[in-house]
């Protein structure tokens, strides 16, 4: 287990470093100069040069990258805005806030959105998928399958505005989505996120319905499932004990991918509902050419993906005794 964790973490680290290099290069390919944005009225070349100097943009790219890595690991006190403890991505060009603090500030929104949504879509998706598989061939199955097919063809950028228009703007059943910290206002937290949850979980659940159904049916054809039936175990027992366990593996794989990318910023969802999470932060970082913020979001997002991958692989071992972690 330890060896597995160490090995996978090292692999993830390599990918993160490569990613940060790519993000760095990408930024320098960007047509916009952050100094222009900060320069304000009465901007002169000298002024811009000065801002470049203050931001450290006048140094060579490798040097800047080195400084970035150094600060990330060890923190830095060189920033004009104040000290920056590790993990230090520096201060945002646009808001002058510590990037790490900004990330941590936005994280609860994304976390609430994602985890709340994930709980909903897992229950809904797996539930309907199991029912469809159990009743396969019947009307119930066909209804669920067809429904899931149609819903999974919807996109958040359609279902989201549609739900907003109907549930919020036209009928005023729900509040306009907003994030209220759960510690301050648990009711507001819930009501503010209910529409995004519904939309997110509907779309995702439909995919899980299809997946868990087909995965279950595949498992039901496994020989060991037949053996269990031949032993005289009841259909229900076979279904839930034998088939279900095996069907979890592909589901967990996809769930890991979904969760990772959602935690790294559900960009379209947050954009659609105007929720100030990591995804919105990413869009802002790009539109303001905010290098520290961009790097922060990108690496954070990639870390989430990689972390979820590792957790998924560990979960395999938990589900399937044949898998050994090493």
């Amino acid at each position, binding site marked *: 287990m330890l060896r597995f964790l160490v090995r996978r973490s090292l692999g993830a680290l390599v990918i993160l470093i490569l990613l940060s290099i790519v993000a760095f290069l990408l930024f320098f390919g960007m047509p916009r100069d952050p100094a222009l944005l900060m320069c304000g009225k009465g901007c002169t070349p000298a002024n811009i040069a000065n801002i470049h100097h203050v931001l450290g943009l006048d140094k060579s790219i490798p040097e800047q990258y080195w400084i970035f890595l150094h600060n990330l690991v060890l923190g830095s006190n060189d920033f004009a805005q104040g000290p920056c403890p590790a993990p230090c991505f520096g201060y945002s060009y646009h808001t002058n806030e510590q990037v790490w603090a900004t990330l941590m500030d936005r994280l609860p929104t994304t976390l609430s959105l994602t985890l709340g949504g994930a709980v909903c879509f897992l229950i809904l998706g797996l539930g309907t998928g199991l029912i469809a598989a159990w009743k396969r061939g019947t009307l119930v199955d066909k209804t669920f399958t067809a429904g899931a097919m149609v819903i999974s063809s919807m996109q958040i950028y359609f279902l989201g505005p549609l739900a907003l228009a109907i549930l919020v703007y036209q009928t005023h059943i729900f509040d306009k989505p907003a994030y209220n910290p759960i510690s301050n206002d648990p009711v507001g937290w819930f009501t503010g996120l209910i529409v995004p949850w519904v939309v997110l979980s509907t779309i995702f659940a439909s995919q899980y319905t299809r997946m868990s159904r087909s995965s279950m049916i595949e498992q039901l054809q496994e020989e060991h499932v037949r053996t269990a039936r*031949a032993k*005289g*175990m009841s259909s229900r027992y076979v279904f839930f004990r034998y088939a279900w366990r095996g069907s979890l593996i592909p589901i967990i794989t996809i769930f890991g991918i979904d969760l990772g990318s959602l935690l790294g910023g559900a960009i379209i969802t947050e954009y659609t509902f105007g929720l100030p999470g990591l995804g919105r932060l990413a869009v802002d970082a790009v539109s303001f050419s905010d290098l520290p913020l961009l790097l922060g979001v990108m690496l954070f997002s990639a870390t989430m993906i990689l972390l979820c991958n590792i957790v998924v692989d560990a979960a395999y071992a938990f589900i399937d*005794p044949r898998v050994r972690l090493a």
Partner: protein
Amino acid sequence: MTTVTKEAGAPVPADAGAFLSVRDLHVSFKTEDGVVKAVDGLSFDLERGRTLGIVGESGSGKSVTNLTILGLHNPQFTTVEGEILLEGQELTTARESQLERLRGNKVAMIFQDPLTALSPYYTVGRQIAEPFMKHTGASKKAAWARAVEMLGKVGIPNPKERASDYPHQFSGGMRQRAMIAMALVCDPDLLIADEPTTALDVTVQAQILDLLKDLQQEFGSAIIFITHDLGVIADMADDIMVMYAGGAVERGTTAEVLRSPQHPYTWGLLNSMPRLDSDLSAPLAPIPGTPPSLLNPPSGCRFHPRCTFQDRVDGNRCVTERPLLAPDRASACHLTAEQKHTIFVEEIRPRLG
């Protein structure tokens, strides 16, 4: 007693004494390409304590027949006609809950590939204990003890520890032993072994066969032994039924069928089997052609497209008329008994060496 063989479709009274009696069984599947007649008018009987060997190529309906006995087919796509009587109880129309009570209890099954047939997610002990708990109502602890006992009986060393291992931690032979332990855990009256040794290497094969024989003696179960390997069956079975394209083509005691086979298909099977004592220079003679499509089976005798002897039958009967299988020692072929005997003695036996 040997296999009771009657005219196909003839009613058999429940008190006829046969432990298992299959009557005019038809099994067909609906597929996207059409209806597949997997079993087409099969009848046989089996007594307690006896072993029936079913031989045939792949797709001849051996496995389907036995899965149908246990009701393990998918009712959605499968049509079953005919009767399956187990101690007089009709199984084709039995409710699922009734079948559940039978499965693993009165009738148990051993599958071909113990690796895929055992669940990878649960310990061997648990998988053996499960049916015991279900059928005897034993406690978890008692069932576990029984599982350990069974593992010991099938010759697994250190059964106490090995019971909590997972199947992938077992070797192939041990897995098959575990399968057998699982099948026998409730002392079944009928054991269906579907090619139990095919996936194993030869030395292990022999051990498993010995084990099965020993256990049969101990438990007194009837066994249906499915295989395509005539060598194995000679060792195991009391009676043999040869199947081709969903129907039985020949049956008799092991000695009868192997010593004086009567059906061209059986000859073919024997021909295609190497023997240690045969002349090395004599080539093996495989049956020409491939098994027929069950979607659209050949008319008349199902074997006629591959049969080298159909010119010895008068007229066009092989193509137009389906030969019937007579009761008892019999074969379903239009050749006369005399022809069969002559051909075997003169043309087939020499080649078998």
